[in-house]
């Protein structure tokens, strides 16, 4: 154990040394894009990514003449609110979107074309392409990454130790994940092996699909019109979680009743051994869970490999905005070295500029290096009817997920047909 600890420490040391010796590129911070003349800009964002979005807006307001008035909308109501505003031509100047909803909104023409503006940015090529690809429709770019949200596994090092597991050695496959969770669950009392949002379609998408991707499997065709969610791979994933439900490793009935709003609230309470979480340390550590006890690992496949769901929010300028130049000033600043390092990296979050991944903040914390490195194997699914199929609480994906894990698993193939019907609606 001592050997493996020091081996990991040595590896991290080498990595940090390598990263810190890289030359720091001089940013074009003095260049102004758009206008910064004291314009008031309205903006909407969803509550789920609110703390990170708010940090960016506050930093912008403090350092610019323009002022952004941001409204955080409850995540579940966000699609509705944007839809209603779009129908009434009253969208705010700027609004962000869960990247998976972007195809739906760009195809409906809710955003202004940013292709030429993005091309003029000196660091355009350095911006993570995931959110831009999701925001591209008919060859035109409508959005930029706003808040990058990756899924990782987080484990409680203290509970790992108590359960006789090596806290420096997180699981490298779903099989090991289940074994570690079972070991922690044996501690008993109010300690549980794992937890998941079992009544939350979006949670399943964000935390289970990467397991399949890590094994090199697909969940949909690239056009987003055919679902492979009844594949042998996916059935193995459902079965693994079903097993953890059946033997009490997963916290029940919470795992069955969690509809989404509180799913990230369980791990920070320090009673869960290992579970998928968004890759952010912002606001995580508290009295119940010391910062040093938060272990992170890349999501692994049933057999091995790693992947992640490259999610989070893209942001664009609405078609109804009259102050596009001022709004662009914020977007250009958002992707700049200043915002990425002094706000995003400082907050312990994933950057939308992978070229800045090695910075003064990430060098101090290997977990941040991991956050920024898992993205290279990650994916962002693309489907025009994503929300109605996968996020809708009455949608067909949640039916499949619940049949597979809690109900009649023989219905999976039939449920997948309903998903295909919804994707092609």
């Amino acid at each position, binding site marked *: 154990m001592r050997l493996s600890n020091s081996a990991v420490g040595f590896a991290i040391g080498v990595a940090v040394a390598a990263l810190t010796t890289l030359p720091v590129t001089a940013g074009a911070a003095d260049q102004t894009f758009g206008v910064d003349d004291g314009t008031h800009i309205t903006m909407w964002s969803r509550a789920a990514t609110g703390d990170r979005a708010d940090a960016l807006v506050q930093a912008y307001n403090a350092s610019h003449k323009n002022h952004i008035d941001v409204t955080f909308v409850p995540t579940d109501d966000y699609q509705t609110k944007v*839809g209603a505003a779009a129908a009434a031509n009253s969208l705010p100047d700027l609004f962000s979107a869960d990247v998976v909803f972007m195809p739906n909104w760009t195809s*409906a023409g809710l955003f202004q074309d940013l292709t030429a503006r993005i091309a003029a940015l000196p660091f355009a090529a350095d911006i993570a392409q995931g959110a831009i690809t999701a925001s591209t429709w008919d060859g035109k770019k409508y959005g930029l990454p706003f808040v990058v949200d990756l899924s990782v596994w987080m484990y409680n090092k203290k509970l790992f130790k108590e359960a006789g597991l090596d806290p420096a050695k997180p699981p490298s496959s779903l099989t090991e994940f289940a074994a570690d969770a079972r070991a922690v669950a044996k501690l008993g009392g109010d300690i549980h092996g794992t937890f998941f949002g079992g009544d939350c379609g979006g949670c399943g998408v964000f935390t289970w699909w990467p397991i399949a991707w890590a094994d090199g499997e697909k969940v949909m065709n690239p056009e987003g019109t055919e679902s492979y969610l009844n594949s042998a791979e996916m059935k193995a994933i459902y079965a693994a979680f079903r097993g953890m439900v059946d033997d009490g490793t997963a916290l029940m009935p919470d795992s069955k009743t969690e509809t989404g709003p509180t799913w990230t609230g369980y791990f920070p309470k320090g009673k869960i051994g290992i579970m998928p979480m968004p890759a952010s340390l912002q606001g995580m550590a508290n009295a119940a869970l010391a910062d040093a006890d938060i272990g992170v690992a890349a999501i692994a496949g049933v057999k091995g490999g790693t992947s992640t769901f490259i999610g989070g929010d893209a942001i664009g300028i609405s078609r109804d905005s009259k102050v596009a130049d001022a709004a662009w000033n914020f977007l250009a600043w958002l992707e700049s070295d200043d915002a990425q390092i002094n706000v995003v990296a400082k907050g312990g979050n994933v950057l939308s500029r992978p070229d800045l991944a090695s910075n003064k903040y990430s060098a101090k914390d290997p977990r941040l290096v991991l956050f920024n490195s898992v993205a290279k194997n990650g994916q962002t699914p693309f489907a025009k009817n994503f929300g109605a199929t996968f996020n809708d*609480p*009455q*949608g067909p994906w949640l039916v499949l997920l619940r049949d597979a894990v809690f109900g009649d698993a023989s219905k999976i193939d039939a449920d997948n047909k309903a998903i295909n019907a919804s994707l092609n609606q």
Partner: protein
Amino acid sequence: MTPATRATPRGAGWRRRHQLVGLVYVIPTVAFVAVFFLTPLVLVARMSLSSWPLLSGDRGLNFPKNFVAIWNNQLFWPAVVFTIEYTVLVTILLIGLGLGTALLVQEVGRWVGALRTIFLLPVAVGLASASLLFWGFYSPSIGPISPILEAVGVIHQPISFLETSTSALLSTTFLIVWKFAGLYMLILLVGLQGIPDDVYEASALDGASRGQMFRYITLPLLRPSLAMALILCVTGSLLAFDQFYILTKGGPDNATVTVVQLIYREAFQRQNLGSAAAISVIVLLALLVLNAIQFRLLRDPERS
């Protein structure tokens, strides 16, 4: 005492001017009804006949596609059945408890004022806020009810308020009863206090028991108030949305999806205003028929 004006002969000019003034008086009401009632009604009817995506607007008529889609919607009939079940349950509880509490607090007494206030207070809370409050109470993650009961020793396992279809329905019903029983108490209390005391005194002289008084005096004379409470309660429950949207999201396993949630889902999740409008039209027609039946059943037999 005949008013003096009535004796004054009036000419045709006066009558025309009188009618004109009357017309001016009703214009605000007519405008209000036209703008806020008729226009949306016509618009919904028009939407129900059209292909009308939320994000791109009117794409032309497609009748009867939106209505045919209702029959193919697997959630529609379960939602109708669930909405009716919920309505029956809630109506029995609310009218029953409303009447019970109204009888309890109709007498003037020392504690009556406090009791009336306690029953009526939840009415002042918005339904969405109340639903959020109860969502917090019921949440296994942050809810205080289970831990408190466990600490006191009443239960040994945490209660799961929303895990099964039955518990989700009962938990929501509890919220609604808490929220609205006071309102129905108030409606029925006003009715009770409108019954003259001398009727009761006369029946007491004739030797009527309390049960007989309730059966033959209170209930018949309370009929108009009961009718109003019933119509309000049935219509309100059939249109239930907030409480289920916030508390259960229609779950678990689509067991608590109401008809209005279905309309909301069509409009905002599936972004199809046409099919949402089609369901709305069906609901509107059903409510019209139902209310007509209720009015007929509850009409005062002596006045008709």
